């Protein structure tokens, strides 16, 4: 329970004490107001950081796009490839900035849900086509399977896409060439609620059972050998779990070394806004 919730609880529970109920209530309300103000400041602080990081990135990427599109003159093929390198590097950096800010907001309990109605299949197909170049490069087969009884979801579409992107990124990173990644959606009743169960299954190296909990923790990477290709900051699964929790769902993995991995997460069909 975070401090705001604690303060709310003490307001509700303010009872007869040596200081008198009115004074206790006033003190609790003051603390609540102070915490709210601090939350607002924290949100502004994170928004300021977002602005400060995105502004120079905008300069880098947009100027490179101007060169790429030949607006200031045609480029040779090699110049074009170099400029594309700048754009891709810039976009990778942008992606990391986004992850870190999401993590920071998540840690400060400042993430909120923006539910809309959408088709899970669309999100799965979009994730698959966004990663098509990587699938091709590693000769990985990919497939989307959605059970016919899966209903429309009422959830935060961007965040569900974010969870998928992080799981898919890992699947691709940890699956050797000529393997496969499957994306599946089905119905599940979990904890008494109607949910959609989404699965990202790969034929990759697998994860030992003793690491199944640890991989969701901040900055944890199972194998920190420098030679192994790893995915970013180690925040991917931490963030995925945070976003799943925000929806009131669950995330877990089934995997053994050498047996591939199946990551599952549930999203309740009706999410409280």
């Amino acid at each position, binding site marked *: 329970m975070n401090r705001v919730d604690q303060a709310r609880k003490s307001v509700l529970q303010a009872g007869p004490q040596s200081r008198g109920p009115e004074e206790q209530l006033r003190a609790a309300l003051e603390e609540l107001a102070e915490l709210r103000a601090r939350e607002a400041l924290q949100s*502004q602080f994170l*928004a300021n950081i977002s*602005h400060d990081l995105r*502004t120079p990135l*905008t*300069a880098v990427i*947009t100027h490179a*796009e101007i060169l790429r599109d030949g607006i200031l003159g045609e480029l040779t093929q090699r110049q074009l490839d170099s400029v594309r390198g700048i754009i891709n590097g810039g976009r990778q950096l942008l992606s990391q900035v986004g992850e870190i800010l999401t993590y920071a907001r998540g840690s400060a309990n400042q993430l*909120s849900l923006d539910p809309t109605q959408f088709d899970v299949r669309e999100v799965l197909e979009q994730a698959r086509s966004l990663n098509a170049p990587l699938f091709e490069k590693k000769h990985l087969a990919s497939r989307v399977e959605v059970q016919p009884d899966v209903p429309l979801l009422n959830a935060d579409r961007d965040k569900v896409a974010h969870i998928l992107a992080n799981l898919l990124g890992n699947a691709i990173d940890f699956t050797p060439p000529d393997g496969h990644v499957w994306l599946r959606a089905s119905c599940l009743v979990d904890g008494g609620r109607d949910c959609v169960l989404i699965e990202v299954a790969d034929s990759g190296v697998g994860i030992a059972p003793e690491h199944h909990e640890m991989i969701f923790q901040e900055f944890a990477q199972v194998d920190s050998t420098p030679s192994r290709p790893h995915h970013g900051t180690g925040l991917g699964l931490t963030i995925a779990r945070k976003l799943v929790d925000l929806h009131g769902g669950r995330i877990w993995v089934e995997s053994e070394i050498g047996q591939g991995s199946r990551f599952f997460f549930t999203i309740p069909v009706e999410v409280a806004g």
Partner: protein
Amino acid sequence: MAVPDARDGGNAHPRAATSQPHVLVVEDNSLVSDAMRILFEASGNRVSVAGSVAEALGVSANDPADLVLLDLTLPDGDGLEVVAACLARQPEGRSVFVALTGRDDAATRQRCMAAGCRDVLLKPVPARELVARSRSWLPAS
């Protein structure tokens, strides 16, 4: 053909001198505003740049823009002050305001829409997408 520029004071040439749509970029980071100028001039617009609320109000007083792309974090205030002042001065004005901000919080988005912005975009926006969208905000040429 010489085109009037915000840094001229914008008051020497009547707007009717050109039939190009007028885009006002309100942004205090010159690396970004230079890129915006290049993009929007290349797609057939007349571009003014303002690096502060005061400059932006000065330009729009003399030379109202068809599209105002607003950064929110300006040295002398909040970009939405420009929207408020323009709408107060010309409630029936045809300027379209679009916030182009690095602030990624929901509260910022809500404030912008409440202030009268047509849309709020988180930068960086891919150049091709920005130009394509601007066509829907600008008068048909």
